[in-house]
């Protein structure tokens, strides 16, 4: 293993985060705080408890997931797309590093950022609503697994994209709608039966449900299924990354 290379890439990416602190950390925190103000305090006070939890507290895991998914995808896709865009990828391709090392370093950096971000948002949420975390280990497990899985997804998008528009396309058209419709702001038990079934095809449901279970012990689907689905997504994205590197897709001519 070329540890020096992985360390160099990881630190390079983390340095980029520090330079863009406003954009990478502060802006998601502000937008999440707005959600709390609007949904938690203003509207939430008029909504009954959901499954025995105050509405403001109920949406916390969903909001963290929302940021975790969008930021993991955004960070990882930009991290690998930018060298392709500027041409500096030549150095990465000519270096004595394996593809696994490249992916691990980029995905590791992107996941680190979104985990830190998720924890900051959790702390921020604590300022607005009383929080309890019933299963802290599971909470961290879901946090890390989701961050890694969707950073891998972002990495794939970054390699696939050959312009900035495509880079924005997937987060905007797929990730955000799926997250909003995936039970971030409601329990799927509140939906009509037909929609409950349809919603089960939305992968984000499993992520949000498992994560919420780790907080309050209530879930839309069994936590075992949530974990299984999260690991399945991880496996799928790992397979795609392996294929990309095997074929040199969009990287080598």
């Amino acid at each position, binding site marked *: 293993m070329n540890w020096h290379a992985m*360390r160099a890439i990881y630190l390079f990416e983390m340095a980029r985060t520090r330079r863009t602190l406003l954009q990478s950390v502060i802006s998601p925190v502000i937008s999440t705080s707005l959600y709390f103000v609007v949904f938690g305090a203003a509207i939430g006070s008029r909504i009954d408890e959901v499954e025995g939890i105050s509405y403001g507290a109920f949406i916390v895991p969903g909001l963290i997931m929302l940021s975790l998914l969008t930021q993991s995808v955004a960070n990882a896709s930009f991290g690998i797309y930018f060298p392709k865009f*500027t041409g*500096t990828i030549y150095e990465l391709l000519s270096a004595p590093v394996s593809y696994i090392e490249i992916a691990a370093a980029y995905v590791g950096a992107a996941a680190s950022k979104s985990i830190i971000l998720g924890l900051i948002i959790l702390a921020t949420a604590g300022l607005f609503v009383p929080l309890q975390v019933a299963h802290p280990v599971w909470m961290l497990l879901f946090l890390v697994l989701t961050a890694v899985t969707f950073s891998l997804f972002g990495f794939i998008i970054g390699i696939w994209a050959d312009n900035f528009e495509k880079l924005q396309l997937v987060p905007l058209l797929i990730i955000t709608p799926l997250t909003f419709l995936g039970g971030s702001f409601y329990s799927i038990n509140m939906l009509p039966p037909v929609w409950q079934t349809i919603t089960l095809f939305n992968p984000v449901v499993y992520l949000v449900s498992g994560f919420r279970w780790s907080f309050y012990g209530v879930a839309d689907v069994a936590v075992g299924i949530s974990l299984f689905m999260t690991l399945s997504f991880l496996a799928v994205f790992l397979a795609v990354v392996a294929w990309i590197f095997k074929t040199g897709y969009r990287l080598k001519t």
Partner: protein
Amino acid sequence: MQTIISVSGLSKTYDSRFQALKCIDLDIRRGEIFALLGPNGAGKTTLISIICGIVKASEGKVRVDGHDIVTDYRAARAMIGLVPQELTTDAFESVWATVSFSRGLFGKPANPEYIEKVLRDLSLWEKKDNKIITLSGGMKRRLLIAKALSHEPEILFLDEPTAGVDVNLRRDMWQLVRSLQASGVTIILTTHYIDEAEEMADRIGVISKGEIILVDDKAELMRKLGKKQMTLHLQSPLEHIPPALAAYQLELASDGNELIYTFDAQRERTGIVALLKGLNDAAIVFKDLHTTQSSLEDIFVSLVKEEK
């Protein structure tokens, strides 16, 4: 001499079906400066990119100091530094950070003293904390060289190192390349500036339309293909060349004030003595003469023309 890079049967056809390289065989010797000369689109960059691992070969093998570039890519690539043709750099990193990053990427532990030396050698030390985006074009070029040297490579590829570089910087660059060679680095440079190859190289390879059409020592190449011209400045202008001298295929220039004789420098009998005697017999008096040797440029142009 020991071979450090061995290219055999290397072909590359791009997805667009453009065949950039056609069965290239080439050996680079340890410690030499090798100039790869050819017009735009001849395949120079493709060849370099394959050796460095950026482009996949369609066929053929490349070994770097005995390491296959595909199966043993780590060992092969760790030996190579590449300075690309385009000024592709990050923008917001500092000079120091980007050069240190390159060293790490190539698997070397941090060594601030060495990075400092490289930056000083390239007159970038004062700029070490500057963001890359604030550097001039010439500085960015040097920064790319610093990045390529950051991991102490034994082989350095310079893809058109002096494209778009001013005369002074060009001289500096040549100086730098020579000092690198003196420290034992093997250098392969591509260029379409012939004077660069002529100035720098130990050996020259000419590539045209994806084929290496010639590889030779620079001196040998000049000797083999070099035509010499002798120009005689006449005392009084000549209207036509006397029939007695027709065999020499002389040319009249400058309104009959100059006579030009072209001959092959490597022939045993150049015919100069006989020509001068003939001129004497024809009572043609000249006040001065000089000879010129064709440059690599002339040689190159005639080679590429023959190809067509």
